[in-house]
């Protein structure tokens, strides 16, 4: 297991370094002079000179990368030119909001996706299976920002049940916080629910066809008990590990969901940074996303290997 961990880490670290290089190199795409582009609206030559100095813009690209990467390793993601704050501080400030949204969305996804997947596997080829597959296809095809707008139209504009926007910290008022998060969480969870349904269905079909399930059936165990006690726990492992990998999808979706519902999280930080031409913040958000994704991927691999020794040789 330790050797497996070492091998996986040996793959994860270069991946992260390469990803950081790609993210750093993005600023080479900026049209014109980087210093001028980074300062945005500001045209003061002194400011531009300061930026040029601060980001070592007169140095060659690899040297600049080394400066930047060194900073990232020390937890210094640069300075947001627009907000006059360290990027790391901004991210730490916004991350909890997105994490809450992501967790609630994952709950929604599990609550809808897993039962639907189990049902469709058990009732394979029957009406329930067709319906569940249809719901999954809807979840994968509906653009989540549109779904958000539709929900606002219905629950905020027409019925007036839920606020269309306005984030409240859970420490101020938990009920108001949840009222503001219900729709974003549903919208974000919707697409993941579809994916979870497909995972669950595939995993359950695999387990339901196995010998021990047939044995249990032959022994006269009730169908419900076979499904829930014998099959589901064994199907749960791939569902959990694959679920961890949906994190990237959650973050991508959060960018749009937060925009629609004006939730002040990680995604909104990125979009605002894009429009303020605050490129240090954009890079900071992207590198954090990549690092988290790689870490989760590693965790999922380790979890699978811990459960299934055969994978350790892979």
């Amino acid at each position, binding site marked *: 297991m330790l050797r497996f961990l070492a091998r996986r880490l040996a793959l994860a670290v270069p991946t992260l370094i390469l990803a950081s290089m790609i993210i750093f190199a993005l600023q080479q795409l900026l049209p014109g002079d980087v210093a001028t582009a980074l300062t945005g609206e500001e045209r003061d030559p002194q400011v531009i000179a300061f930026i040029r100095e601060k980001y070592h813009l007169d140095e060659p690209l690899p040297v600049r990368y080394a400066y930047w990467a060194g900073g990232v390793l020390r937890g210094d993601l640069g300075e947001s030119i627009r907000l006059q704050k360290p990027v790391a501080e901004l991210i730490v400030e916004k991350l909890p909001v997105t994490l809450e949204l992501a967790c609630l969305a994952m709950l929604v996804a599990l609550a809808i996706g897993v039962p639907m997947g189990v049902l469709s596997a058990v009732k394979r080829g029957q009406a329930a299976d067709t319906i569940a597959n249809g719901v999954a296809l809807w979840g994968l095809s509906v653009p989540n920002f549109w779904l958000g707008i539709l929900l606002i139209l219905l629950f905020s504009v027409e019925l007036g049940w839920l606020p269309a926007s306005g984030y409240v910290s859970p420490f101020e008022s938990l009920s108001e916080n949840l009222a503001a998060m219900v729709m974003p969480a549903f919208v974000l969870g919707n697409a993941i629910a579809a994916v979870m349904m497909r995972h669950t269905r595939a995993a359950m079909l695999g387990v339901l066809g196995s010998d021990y399930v047939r044995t249990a059936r032959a022994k006269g165990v009730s169908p419900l008990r076979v499904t829930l006690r014998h099959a589901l726990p064994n199907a749960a492992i791939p569902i959990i590990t694959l679920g961890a990998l949906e994190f990237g999808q959650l973050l991508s979706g959060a960018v749009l969901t937060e925009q629609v519902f004006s939730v002040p999280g990680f995604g909104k930080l990125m979009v605002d940074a894009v429009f303020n031409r605050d490129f240090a913040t954009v890079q900071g958000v992207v590198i954090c996303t990549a690092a988290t994704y790689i870490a989760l991927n*590693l965790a999922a691999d380790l979890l699978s290997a811990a459960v299934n020794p055969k994978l350790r040789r892979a």
Partner: protein
Amino acid sequence: MSTGSEIARAEAVGLEAAPSGTPAQPLLQEPGTLAAFWRRLRARKSAVAGLVIVGLLILMAVFAPWIAPYDPTATDWGNVRGAPSLAHPFGGDEVGRDVLSRIIFGARASLGAGLVSVALAVSLGLPLGLLAGYAGGWIDGAISRLTDALLAIPFLILAIALAAFLGPSLVNAMIAIGLSATSTFIRLTRAQVRAVAAEEFVEAARAMGNPPWRIARVHILPNIVPAILVQATLTIAAAIIAEASLSFLGLGQQPPEPSWGAMLNTAKNFMDEAPWMAIWPGLSIFLAVLAFNLFGDGLRDALDPRQRT
């Protein structure tokens, strides 16, 4: 980090057509199966429905100037946020442009972005994947690490970042989406190539002294085309959503040119007064994405009956 769980995950999302279990099995064509393939495809009502909708949308985009009742950028002060009427069945937008005409012309941005960005992703990803899968060694290692690094950045986040640095325009959005989708095609092609290259007929071709490039072109490429086709179709669906997302954020098609995503962005500000502005663009995106997803799923089932679940 290319584990079985990764591939299985992508497969369940419909992102990668590789069958479960590593290494991926190639979607081998048996001789003379084109007719059989067509028969299997036609037998799937959902796939046919997807294909028909895709066809209609393409016709709509191509013949937009003849179908649209109005100029999509012409403003009409009498129709500002006008409710749907006989003259304007889908209503008017915030400056009185005809929503129906903008929907019809908007198909050009959506389908164009879907097709162009996927064409870009395939034309970059296919050769790189072929090279990685067939050459092996350090070339494979280098390309695979690059792919892993790209895949570590979520698709839409990478596309947004790329579009942000390139500058907002429809062409840049297409480039950003295409580059973001490339890694998927590299990985799929590589897995397919490795699976096909292990087959006996490739071994035989090699034993007969065929040069590597000839084996790659004549023996391997034709056998991986079906999987690439399925993946391309499903990626078009993802690319259409991505274009709509970028335009919704203001990073894609710039006003006044019509795009479904950008229309939704404006509609968000007028939900009280003009809800129809939000309904039709969203429905159009949904329909287009659904159609490509249905067709892609059907294509996969029809190309490889073994994979049917």
